[in-house]
């Protein structure tokens, strides 16, 4: 096992145990991120309690995905502090180390290993040693096989078990990614738009699954689908322009003046769908444009 960052024994990846004596598992304090002058996150403060299910909502560009990037180590903040439990400084860890420490993530756009089979996708995600030599001589134990089979049943992909993941439908990929997340047995699950592309029934199942995970795990869900948020959320945090606008239960949020003004606006429930639709379209174009943002 090669450990990059020595120094604090806390950082040897297998030994990370978040200290949650205060009931908080994730501290995000005064975090700012800017891209070329654009403040994606602006002095953001967020505390996720151990075992809680939290929903993050907010308009496009509110900083939801950037926040997840910061927590998982993909983006380094300009200022601020992010810690796992009280003492594990996530800013000192690499993406892989954060994942091993027990923070799992499902991406907005489902990313699975397309050339590998569904089974192999889950297998790679299983919790355990991720070192080279183990990988070289590793044999799946019966216990692990059972676990994979169990997860496959949970996500409803048992039949597609030996299919290359690339051949799954969009919704199935969503499920597979959730399965990969389950396999990693993380302490904290960050779930970015889990129900996009799912049928109503599947959405319901996802809602059930996420609710059942809460308690043992902390779950943070980013979702645009208000109905879905309403169905699962106990606590909702509204992000606006890179900082927290409001926090509370769904009903509190809905009656919050600021929120009504900047996010829900004058809309009522019926407009929801149209708005979402528009949003996802614009988001998509935004996504595609970014990789090639190049000025001459």
């Amino acid at each position, binding site marked *: 096992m*090669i450990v990059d960052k020595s120094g604090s024994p806390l950082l040897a990846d297998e*030994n*990370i*145990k978040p200290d949650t004596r205060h009931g908080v598992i994730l501290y995000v304090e005064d975090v700012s991120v800017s891209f070329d002058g654009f403040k994606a996150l602006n002095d953001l403060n967020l505390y996720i309690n151990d075992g809680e299910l939290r929903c993050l909502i907010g308009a496009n560009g509110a900083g939801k995905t950037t926040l997840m990037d910061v927590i*998982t180590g*993909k983006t380094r903040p300009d200022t601020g502090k992010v810690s796992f439990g009280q003492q594990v400084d996530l800013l000192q860890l*690499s*993406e*892989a180390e954060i*994942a*091993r420490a027990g923070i799992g993530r499902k*991406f907005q756009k489902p*990313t*699975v*290993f*397309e*050339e*590998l*089979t569904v*089974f192999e996708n889950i*297998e*790679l995600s299983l*919790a355990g040693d*991720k*070192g*080279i030599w183990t*990988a*070289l001589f*590793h044999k799946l134990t019966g216990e692990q*096989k*059972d*676990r994979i*089979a*169990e997860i*496959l*049943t*949970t996500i*409803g992909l*048992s*039949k597609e*078990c*030996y*299919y*290359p993941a*690339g*051949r799954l439908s969009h919704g199935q990929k969503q499920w597979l990614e959730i399965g990969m997340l*389950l396999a*990693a*047995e*993380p*302490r904290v699950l960050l779930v970015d738009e889990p129900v996009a592309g799912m049928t109503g029934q599947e959405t319901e*199942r996802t809602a*059930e*699954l996420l609710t*059942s*995970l809460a308690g*043992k795990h902390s779950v943070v869900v980013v979702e645009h689908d208000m109905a879905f948020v309403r169905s699962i959320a106990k606590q909702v945090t509204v992000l606006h322009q890179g900082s927290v606008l409001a926090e509370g239960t769904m009903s509190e949020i809905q009656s919050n003046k600021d929120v009504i003004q900047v996010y829900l606006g004058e809309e009522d429930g019926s407009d929801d769908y149209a708005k979402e639709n528009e949003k996802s379209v614009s988001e998509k174009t935004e996504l595609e444009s970014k*990789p*090639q*943002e190049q000025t001459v």
Partner: protein
Amino acid sequence: MTTSTIKTDTSMNHSNNSAPNNHLPNNKPTFVQKLSELGSLRVVIGFLLISAFYVTFCNLVFAEGSFFHVSDYTVSLFGKYLCYALLALAVDLVWGYCGILSLGHGAFFALGGYAMGMYLMRQIGDRGVYGNPDLPDFMVFLNWTELPWYWAGSSSVFWMIAMVFIGPGLLAYIFGSLAFRSRVSGVYLSIMTQAVTYALMLAFFRNEMGFGGNNGLTDFKEILGFSLQEPSTKLGLFVATAIALAIGYMVSDFIVKSKMGRVVTAIRDAESRVRFVGFKPEHYKLWIYVVSAMLAGVAGALYVPQVGIINPGEFSPLNSIEMVVWVAIGGRGTLYGALIGAVVVSYAKTRFTAIMPEAWLFALGGLFVLVTLYLPKGIAGLLPNILNKKDSENEASDTDQSKESNNTSIEKSEASS
């Protein structure tokens, strides 16, 4: 270190999951499985050893002029092809499986070759033109009085074998650890590897480097006490190469079929995602890059006594690119594809350059373009198509499309990040 300290409840109260089900469905073999059957270890190794035996047998038993006779020249030629095949295997391991397009594998091949060349040079002893028992001819010519420090030990065969692994391995380790840690990838990495082999070529062309400069190392007399002029030595080298290739193939096969293989494939398809699963792609990439460099080094070491010379031309970027073409044409991502590619293209090169030399570059260039445009999976991708047309047609197009779109997004994000 297989237990995780982070324990979560593994049983979930889920409507669909009331009873754990550990019977995985037995699907009919898929496209991917058929591929691996065709290239199964036994088939390839068997074929390899049988053909090696056939060549040996025909060379020894049948007299010259007989229909079945395999000439010494052909034996040497096949030996060369097998070296190329081993080299192609190395390239396929990093490119086909891990997505690292190395345009500098020629450097590892050449370093292995130089390690062997140094040993062979020392074996000449006082039979050189200048008759100096300690110094190779070119050093005498340059008025050097003693061996440079890095030639120390070069007369020992064990040292030579160690250097065949250490030389290329060390270069790969240094370059790889720098490049992969700073997440240089894709085209950038390819250009970087090309720059490295180009720089090495320039360096080895200098006489001051102490590797014979322009002329390289040549005029070898014997290896392990056997004269290199003897047909039996040539045959022995051929057999040794075949065995080395078989071992190399088995090692590669073991790697790609292990969990390691699945991790590197995952890295190839979605490197950033692999990080979020908890693997460190840079370690895996580095490991497989070093292994691949060593395989290439072995190929180079076996190549040199069979062709009788090693010079800086082996470092030329064009050589490295040619290796990539073997793999592209044979079919990357399948080990046996790499073997097929190396042998077929090298054979074509031998024929072409004999008949009409000027056409070879046209053919090679054309192959590049056509294969990338119309045959992304190479010859190995064609075979299953022929074997099972109906099944593979819809499946292949399916995976192709999804893979393409996936690649696009990855490359885009790489370009931006």
